């Protein structure tokens, strides 16, 4: 039995484990093991202690049957009681010692394991903070979360529990073989000869199990993806009355999985009874041959009894090593998945000595900027713009034209392919990234709130802000009124992602958060799209105050919100096709004026 089964609550995991089934194979085993070792190294001394404790406990365990054989041969069999007490006492000492060593070892083991997990998990989290946005845009968060939880957990359990077990098993095996050969050469040979048989059987079954197991996993994957997708869109399923269709679809996949799983599980289930059979077989073999030897005077009864014990301890480590091999394989594969993230290129500073500044004037310029999220498809082509300090620049254009992309570049969520973006005359790449972002205030299209109170969420904009400052910011954003109506006002705890607020309310909080940040340059990416126009009008006043004296970039579908901008840029298909003030653009009678009048077209016609 492995101690890691004793109740460590597993992080949610969808993968099923069968005995002796190879998990995903590692690509570069040696390299991964070496890297894992790096994490253990800091606890080298502790590990050394653990390993010596394991060795001690194993040796003591080995002594047990030997002493027992001795007791039978030297005392019980020949009916001698003189000195019998000594040997019994020695046995007690051996067993108590072994148990104590094991207990201490297990305790230390847990320390090492939990420390290692903590270190790896912390490091992973730290790494994630350093990764570029592109990484998050291109990966599902389910996959990432599972790496942070399941894989890390798996690694630590295996690293410590399995490693000590491996050592104790190997030592045990070696010790048992040595002891057996010392006790009786011929009987030892008979016992050892069963090893190849065991290995052959294991391998044979393992081969078939893997095949079926793979099939099972494939179908389970299908079942799970149907579940995830259907549940994710459950409201749409209901809205379109598709319940029966999805049930049918699911039932088919479920049935197919069941059939594969039964096959795989039956095969995997052979291992237990088979090892039991091998045990009994060895036991019987020793009884048969041992009995024969005793009669022929080639061995004593005590030796045969000791052999019977050793034989039980003999098959177990072999079985365990086979198990552990797979567990370790799985952990190494998990470790690779973890290292993959640790090896992702972080957001780097492009300069050796990036510029540090406390304040920006807010002169922003784009020079011939080209950009595409993928190499082949350019989203932005030859963008040129110039914003003087304190100006408001509005970006207008159809969906998918590239407005949000411009913001992504300015914030350096993505870096440009060609051209230059300058703030206060310096390329944004020459500033320290944190300095740049600290001076930008961004209210995004998709607001994201954290679990915690309303107060905490607004304070996210400036951690040192007092309660009064937070409330002031909320008032400016026109969020104060509705917050006051919440059950615990500013101390209302938002559920994950703020689901207990409406989209618009969440946006108001996000705006308050940005107001509190007091940035040099303001970016509003559809900041008020989910807020109704009346509320928006109120926020506008706050926003206008906020925009005063700050360079601001505003993206909005509602043209009314941007009429007062100093420069309006009309973007279509990644190019700026018109630029100017509201009245200039209306006079041009181009795209903008068409767009603008479209708002009243229905009415006019």
């Amino acid at each position, binding site marked *: *039995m492995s101690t890691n*089964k004793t*109740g*460590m609550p597993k992080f949610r995991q*969808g993968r099923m484990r069968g005995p002796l089934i190879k998990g995903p194979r590692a690509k570069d085993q040696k390299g991964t093991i070496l890297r894992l070792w790096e994490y253990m190294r800091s606890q080298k001394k502790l590990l050394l202690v653990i390993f010596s404790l394991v060795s001690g406990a194993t040796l003591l365990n080995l002594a047990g049957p030997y002493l027992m054989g001795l007791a*039978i041969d030297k005392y*019980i069999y020949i009916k001698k009681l003189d000195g019998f007490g000594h040997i*019994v006492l020695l046995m007690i000492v051996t*067993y*108590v010692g072994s*148990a104590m060593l*094991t207990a201490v070892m297990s305790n230390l083991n847990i320390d090492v394991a939990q420390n290692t997990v903590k270190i790896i998990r912390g490091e992973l*989290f730290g790494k994630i903070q350093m990764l570029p*946005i592109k990484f*998050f845009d291109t990966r599902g968060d389910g996959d990432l979360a599972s790496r942070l939880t399941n894989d890390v957990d798996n690694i630590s359990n295996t690293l410590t529990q399995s490693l000590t077990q491996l050592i104790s098993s190997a030592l045990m095996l070696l010790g048992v073989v040595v002891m057996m050969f010392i006790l009786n050469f011929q009987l030892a040979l008979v016992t050892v000869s069963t090893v190849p048989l065991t290995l052959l059987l294991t391998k044979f079954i393992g081969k078939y199990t893997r095949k079926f197991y793979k099939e099972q996993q494939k179908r389970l994957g299908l079942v799970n993806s149907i579940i995830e997708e259907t*549940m*994710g*869109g*459950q*409201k*749409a399923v209901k809205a379109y009355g598709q319940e029966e269709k999805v049930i049918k679809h699911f*039932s088919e996949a479920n049935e197919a999985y*069941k059939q594969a799983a*039964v096959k795989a*599980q*039956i095969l995997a*289930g052979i291992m*237990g*009874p088979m090892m039991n059979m091998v045990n*009994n077989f060895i*036991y019987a073999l020793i*009884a048969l041959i041992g*009995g024969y030897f*005793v*009669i022929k005077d080639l061995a004593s*009864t005590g030796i045969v*009894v000791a052999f*019977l014990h050793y034989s039980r301890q003999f098959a177990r480590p072999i079985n365990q090593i086979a198990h552990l091999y797979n567990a370790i394989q799985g952990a190494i594969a998990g470790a690779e998945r973890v290292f993959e993230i640790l090896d992702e290129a972080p957001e780097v500073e492009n300069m050796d000595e990036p510029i540090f500044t406390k304040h920006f004037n807010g002169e922003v310029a784009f020079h011939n900027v080209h950009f595409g999220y993928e190499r082949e498809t350019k989203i932005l082509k030859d963008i040129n713009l110039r914003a003087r300090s304190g100006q408001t620049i509005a970006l207008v*254009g159809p*969906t*998918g034209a590239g407005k949000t992309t411009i913001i992504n570049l300015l914030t350096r*969520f993505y870096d440009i392919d060609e051209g230059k973006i300058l703030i206060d005359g310096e390329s944004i790449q020459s500033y320290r990234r944190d300095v740049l972002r*600290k001076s930008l205030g*961004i209210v995004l299209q998709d607001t994201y709130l954290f679990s915690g109170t309303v107060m905490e969420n607004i304070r996210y*904009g400036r951690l040192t802000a007092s309660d009064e400052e937070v409330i002031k910011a909320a008032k400016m954003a026109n969020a104060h009124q509705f917050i006051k109506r919440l059950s615990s006002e500013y101390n209302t705890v938002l559920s*994950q992602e703020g689901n207990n607020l*409406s989209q*618009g*309310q969440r946006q108001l909080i996000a705006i308050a958060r940005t107001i509190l940040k007091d940035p040099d340059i303001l970016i509003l990416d559809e900041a008020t799209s*989910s*807020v*109704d*126009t*009346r509320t928006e009008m109120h926020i506008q006043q706050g926003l206008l105050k906020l925009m005063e004296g700050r360079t601001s970039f505003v993206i909005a*579908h*509602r043209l*009314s919100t941007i009429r007062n901008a100093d420069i309006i840029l009309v973007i279509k298909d990644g190019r700026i096709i018109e630029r100017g003030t509201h009245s200039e653009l209306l006079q041009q009678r181009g795209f903008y004026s068409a767009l603008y009048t479209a*708002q*009243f077209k229905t*009415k006019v016609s």
Partner: protein
Amino acid sequence: MKKIIKYLQKYWKIAMLGPILMCCEVLIDLFQPLLMERIIDIGIKNNDLNFVVTTGTIMVLLSFLGFIGGFGSGIFSSTASQRAGADIRRDLFEKVQSFSYKNLDEIEIGNLITILTNDVIQVQQFFAILLRMMVRAPLMLVGSVTMTFYVSAKFGVILVGLIGFLFLLMFGLIRKAKPLFTKVQERVDQVNTVMLENLRGMRVVKSFVREDYEIKRFDKVNNDLKIAMTKASKVLVLILPLIMLVLNLGIVIVLWVGGREVYEGSLSVGQVVAVINYILRLLGSLMMLGVIFVQITRAGASAKRIGDVLESAPYINEIKENEKEFNIKGAIEFRNVDFSYNHQSNELVLQNISFKINPGETLAILGATGSGKSTLIQLIPRFYDVTRGEILIDGYNVREIPQKILRKNISIALQKAIIFSGTIEDNIKYGRPTASEGKVREVAGDAQALEFIDRMPRGLKTMLEERGANLSGGQKQRISIARALMVTPKILLLDDSTSAVDVQTESLIQKAINEKFSDTTVIIVAQRISSVLAADRIIVLDDGEIVADGNHEELIRSSPVYQDIYKSQLGEEVSVNVN
């Protein structure tokens, strides 16, 4: 747990075969030491080579027979547990399909997914272990004790005493560990929360340059988890050495007492050896019991979650006997409707809503954030049931209309468009899978989606990623509108479904709907005044109540609230334009 075990009972015939075959394996295991005793006490003592060889060969053969028993039990227990698992999964899935929106709000979707994927597997594994180990371990326990009694009553008593002592110890430890593990689970949840929040909200973290803050936050929960985990594990880890110690000491006692009895001649050497062997086998089965305990607690939590889902009653109940023919035309009437999401609290989201629209008319709903617009719309297809008052379609209370018919005739496009993985075509055809490609193109055109679909290299056959990650917000919304139009509904509900679409495109969509779906009753929830100008009727909601009602001309003259909204969007320059 009881409810879950029922699933296994269905397969009791197969399930029982497993344990029965397992008995066969256990019996053979128990026989081996007895035969060994005979080899020592009869064969060796009398120098009877023949006896030794015969008995030894029987032992070898029995070991093979034992394998057949074990293997057979494996087949049956695997089959039974997998079938029961598949049944649970299917029932859960079907149950969820019967849920109303309120159920879905209560049990979060994320939880449902975990329950269906993870918890079912936990229970399934538990079944397999239950059928195999639950029989084997106690059987070995009882068998070993019985055989020991058979060999020597004195040893039997000693053994029972030891086992009793062990169980007390184990229960004590487990009881101590349980609250500790509850704490561990809490901390695990905390770690997961911080992690997921960061993954999803990374743009916010980065734009506020809060990386260090988040790392600190994570360090704290990470460390808390470590401490809790270490504490809990350290208790449980004692179980194994304790079992081994107690039983090994048992062996020593047997040896000590046995040695003296052999000396006195009341016991044979073989008998002592046999008892020691039984204790050794006992060790194995006790360790197995330890594993089962852990499995039970783990599966118990899963079983409870599964049970909760299976037992929660759908909030919306169908009136069964209604076989009436419903030919929905699309007249909608609200009569004094009150609504609150939570029946306990008196917080009304909608209050005293009354209005009536005729088939083919267009109603627009304007209102402040949180004023109850979306809620109002969701009451029509009975996603939620009204708290007071009634909603009538063609004069029938919506509660009387079978849900199937209701939803077939009502189509809704949500602000947060839901996209399924599959092609664009699949997504549009969602409500009507048999539609021809021509029809798909037609509605995609009406929704102004064709323009961007055709620009994609594979057009309608473009594969969409999960949640439509490769589309922009406006594109998703347009696909969702096309999907809603696909079913040619009698009632079309547009829940702010063009918020990410630009004004020009939006007006084209509206034009297409007006022209081609003139029989369809349309309700539009919108933010832009431009979206509602053409509506036959406009309702302005404020804090769950209707504060203005009429068409544009009437409202612009009579309603200050409406004028307020109008001005806020179009400003004073509008008049110049309009004139």
